[in-house]
């Protein structure tokens, strides 16, 4: 029925089966859209956020998906700037993943703010000292870049490419892709950093506050590094996941190993810097403002285990596994380590967003707890469903893995 839209030479499941996969996600998306409608039309009281937990699941989601979405910019950087041809096998998939992550994040952000219609005020009255301004500017610009990067992939659809105009435009666009990749890298560097800076500048939150290097707090650089490290891992994990779900081989094993190696090396650097940063914070930054760093880890259920888990178990361990060629060659180890890398970065974002807000500042504050409302979870899941839908559509009708047909035919 939709066969004429499926790229030639690729084997895709029947339309019926495809719809059977899509419909549940469409329902989930619809449910999430209802929750979003409630939040937009009636107010944010539908969430379980409050004046003390002013940021919740959504901001966590934003920070996490943007960190993972870094795979798009980093793969582009590897391919177009560093000319690593291995990356070509996953670039289209990475662009779609990046687009999903960023557009999802921006959509959730628009629900999260109290007055989304005023979002443009940030451009009109920008406070250039605010990390959020930097994030907003870079995010919008980079989302535009991602959309432009997505256009050629769409235009190469079997039906669309029959229109000569599209094919030619795609061709021209593709030729200047390195420029866009360069711009994307630049923007990503800044907004990943600014997202880190978002919390690092919070002088009033000693748990998050970090020393400044130049005009940016250290978290700026930590976030850039960790996102660059997690991005390839996420692309790796997602590729493996799609291979698993579609039961097809999509890329050559060398490609995954290449991604793993890049991810591992960057993660190793990140962990090193993170360790130094943590030590400086514990011994200097935090005591300076009157808080003993370990006090933070006595609060509620946040013990020092969370630090060990983040830095060692989900940081150092996967980094060592990934840089070791022998370990990396085992597909399960490779996948596991990449997954751990992603989890480590997710945990880092959790600590920065949720733990920071849960911890008390005033002497009569209590440790707060926060449990997202169903509307928040539904919105979260809607983004997930949106991602699955967009990716599934792209996977079915567009060429996401150029190696796929070659692997089949060889």
């Amino acid at each position: 029925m939709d066969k004429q839209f499926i790229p030639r030479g690729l084997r895709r499941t029947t339309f019926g089966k495809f719809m059977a996969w899509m419909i549940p996600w469409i329902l989930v998306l619809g449910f999430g859209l209802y929750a979003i409608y409630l939040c937009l039309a009636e107010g944010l009281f539908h969430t379980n956020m409050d004046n003390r937990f002013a940021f919740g699941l959504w901001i966590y989601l934003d920070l996490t998906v943007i960190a993972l979405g870094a795979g798009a910019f980093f793969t582009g950087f590897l391919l177009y700037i560093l000319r690593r041809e291995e990356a070509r096998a996953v670039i289209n998939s990475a662009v779609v993943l990046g687009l999903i992550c960023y557009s999802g994040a921006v959509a959730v952000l628009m629900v999260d703010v109290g007055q989304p219609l005023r979002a443009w005020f940030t451009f009109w009255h920008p406070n250039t000292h605010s990390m959020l301004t930097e994030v907003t500017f870079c995010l919008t610009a980079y989302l535009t870049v991602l959309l432009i990067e997505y256009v050629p992939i769409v235009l190469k659809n079997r039906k669309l490419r029959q229109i000569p105009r599209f094919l030619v435009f795609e061709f021209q666009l593709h030729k200047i892709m390195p420029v866009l990749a360069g711009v994307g890298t630049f923007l990503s560097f800044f907004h990943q950093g600014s997202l880190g800076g978002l919390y690092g500048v919070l002088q009033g939150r000693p748990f998050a506050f970090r020393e400044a290097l130049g005009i940016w707090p250290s978290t700026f650089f930590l976030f850039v590094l960790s996102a660059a490290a997690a991005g390839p891992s996420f692309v790796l994990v997602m590729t493996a996941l799609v291979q698993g779900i579609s039961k097809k081989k999509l890329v050559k094993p060398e490609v995954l190993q290449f991604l793993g190696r890049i991810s591992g090396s960057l993660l190793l650097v990140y962990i090193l810097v993170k360790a130094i940063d943590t030590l400086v914070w514990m011994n200097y930054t935090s005591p300076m403002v009157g808080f003993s760093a370990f006090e933070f880890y006595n609060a509620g259920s946040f013990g020092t285990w969370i630090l060990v888990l983040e830095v060692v178990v989900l940081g150092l361990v996967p980094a060592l596994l990934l840089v070791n060629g022998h370990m990396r060659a085992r597909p399960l180890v490779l996948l596991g380590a990449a997954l751990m890398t992603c989890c480590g970065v997710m945990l880092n974002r959790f600590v920065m967003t949720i733990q920071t807000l849960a911890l008390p500042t005033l002497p009569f504050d209590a440790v707060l707890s926060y449990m997202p409302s169903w509307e928040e979870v539904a919105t979260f899941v809607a983004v997930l469903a949106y991602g699955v839908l967009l990716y599934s559509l792209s996977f079915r009708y567009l060429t996401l893995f150029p190696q796929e047909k070659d692997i089949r035919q060889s």
Partner: protein
Amino acid sequence: MDQGTQKKSRYGMLIDLDRCNGCGACMVACAVEHNVAPAEHKATARTGVTWLRVAPMSNGGEFPATDTIYVPMPCQQCEKDTPCVAVCPQNAVDVDPATGIVGQVPQRCLGCRYCMTACPYHARYFDWWDPQWPKGMEQALNPDVAPRMRGVVEKCNFCHARLHTARTKAAAEGRESINPADYVPACVEVCPSKAIVFGDLEDATSELAQAVKHPHVFRFLEKLGTESKVYYRSDKQWVLDKAKSLQTV
């Protein structure tokens, strides 16, 4: 009114915690003054809007060796590196250099709540609901303060509307500076136990400038270096210890 010709002021407060008995009159007067809407049915202590909040602080002792004081917590009007000002993406928060008052422009606020996470005093409040007054009550609203819409952040501004009124009066009477008696925030005015002293810290002769020199005067989270202008005083040692000590969870 030309701000340039005005004398620079730094308005501040000193709250005597030993006098405060937690009656809440300041909170109610504040809400009435600033046309804060009554709570929605589901609002709680964590979603309510109270520009000034009185929070109990316990010495942590076991019964009967227990003691509790009440800490009125308005915006602390931080002066240096004001945490909320730097973070606002669209310049909806500013510090008035002429008064030292941290102002909030609700019409420009995006409602991102970044300033709320930045504020260590939790003195900022978000309008989670549409403001709603019982039918007819709008005629009992204070004509000097515009109500805020849903989805923005609001906070104490030391009754800026009263400052404006005092300035208008001064201008009408041909004075360059306002009469301090004309500018008294609502919470200060109504406190039945007269626990709050308000004034200009810049004016060394003011009651406030004198009173903050007392050794039992402190500010919360002083080490953060925000140079807040709301001072507290207590003669109880445990209060001083708790306010100054490292945080104990």
